[in-house]
């Protein structure tokens, strides 16, 4: 994960429980304990929070909170949360590279898996609730409607990523190959944004916000490489 950090200054890139900068001195042990607890609570907390949109959807479905067209509302919400989690899953890497925050990396896999789970639920909702398994109609939709084609491809792109999300898969594939494969997350996010943008009738504000966020997060990934390139260039000239 840290093949680039050898060239960069020793920021807070330590593994679990390692002392962060500033944890020395008298207050050290206590802060260390708090930090350990926070890190331990991080995953269960992230999991619970990530489930909330689904819980809200279920409770709204039972109480009439989805409005006059609950089927469309449910599908839109699931799509929204898919894109949100896809976007969030792109945050940890630049957060570490640019801000030196290492804890988001610990929930990166979970964010990605939630993106897949919401995408799969969104698609299942489309198949079983919206179209009620009208397979000829669904096949026509996927083939003929550009925005549905793109959304479907985005879902397909996420499948190998979900399948190879285990530690075992990383070991089996080797980190470099695994990492290369998982760059497909960028494609999935971009396709997801296009899917949304092509869906709206006139008001492109929400897709535009996602486009800006995903674009920014992808550009932010170039920062370490740019820094190295600048470093090399400066090294050569001085």
């Amino acid at each position: 994960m840290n093949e680039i950090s050898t060239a960069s200054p020793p920021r807070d890139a330590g593994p679990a429980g390692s002392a962060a900068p500033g944890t020395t001195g008298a207050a050290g042990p206590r802060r260390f304990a708090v930090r350990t607890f926070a890190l331990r609570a991080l995953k269960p907390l992230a999991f619970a929070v990530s489930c909330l949109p689904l819980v809200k959807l279920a409770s709204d479905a039972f109480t009439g909170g989805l409005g006059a067209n609950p089927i469309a509302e449910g599908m839109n919400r699931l799509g929204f949360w898919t894109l949100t989690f896809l976007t969030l899953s792109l945050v940890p890497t630049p957060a570490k590279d640019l801000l030196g925050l290492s804890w988001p990396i610990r929930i990166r896999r979970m964010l990605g898996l939630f993106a897949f789970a919401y995408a799969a639920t969104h698609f299942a909702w489309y198949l079983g609730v919206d179209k009620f398994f009208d397979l000829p109609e669904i096949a026509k939709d996927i083939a003929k409607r550009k925005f549905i084609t793109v959304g479907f491809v985005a879902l397909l792109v996420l499948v190998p990523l979900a399948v190879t999300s285990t530690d075992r898969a990383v070991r089996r594939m080797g980190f470099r190959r695994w990492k290369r494969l998982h760059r497909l997350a960028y494609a999935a996010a971009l396709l997801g944004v296009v899917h949304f943008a092509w869906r709206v009738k006139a008001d492109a504000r929400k897709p535009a916000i996602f486009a800006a966020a995903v674009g920014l997060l992808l550009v932010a990934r170039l920062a370490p490489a740019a820094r190295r390139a600048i470093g090399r260039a400066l090294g050569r000239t001085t």
Partner: protein
Amino acid sequence: MPRWRDDLPESEVTPERLYLRRREFLALGAAGAVGSLLPGARALAGPEGEPLAVASRSDRADGEKPTPWESITTYNNFYEFGTDKDDPARNAGSLRTRPWTVSIEGEVKKPQAVDIDALLKWFPLEERIYRMRCVEAWSMVIPWVGFPLGELVRRVEPTSRAKYVAFQTLLDPKQMPGQRRAVLEWPYVEGLRMDEAVHPLAMLAVGLYGRVLPNQDGAPIRLVVPWKYGFKGVKSIVRIRFVEQEPQTTWRRMAPNEYGFYANVNPAVDHPRWSQAKERRIGEFLRRPTLPFNGYGAEVAHLYAGLDPRKLY
């Protein structure tokens, strides 16, 4: 550490007779989930607002039960108040429908600016239950109150040069917060060919469920053309202009490859981004087939004899 320990207390174990009934719970849950997506999951809000004097009633939706008031008044496409379906119900309170003047102008012998309350006395009000098919493939059954547009047309006496009628919504970003963003080109404009405008089915609506039309549904006066997609039904009308040339219409200007002037409901012509073959009646689970001209073909199909049906979209 062992991977598995038998430390589950007996109290946590599901009794076998409940375990054996697990599928019933699943089925119950599934039925509940589906049931909640259907009407009647909870009590819906009923009609409210000032009652109107309705002189006659007619059912033009083949006896189908009207869509609940709450659905008709909370699920709206009225971008002047926001682009989400529930935005108009939330934001349309800022619209002032009195005083309100409708300007009738162009190729007419009696051009005039008429106050809405005077206009309401021109003709007896009728209730008409119509199907309403949105271009987004959902539909409702709506008990409108209003009068035939043809009556108004005849009263103001169009000249022989009047071939079309153009309609315009109020333009006032103070009252219509959605107009502060250029989502569409404001004001909203729509139009009909003269023979469409005088067709007995075309109406100007001022009420819903026997009450004054709520703001989010296009108060104080809106167009209803039941054989066309809903976006033809221009809301909160301030100008009715009789013209010689086919007028520009808002959605066609926005996306000419997706929306035409006629916009007749046609299951055979898909919207470029979705099928129009079926529709979901609000409150129902399964989609139902869409009918040509929204089921009003027997009365209106002759208006389009000789026209390329693809143009009718």
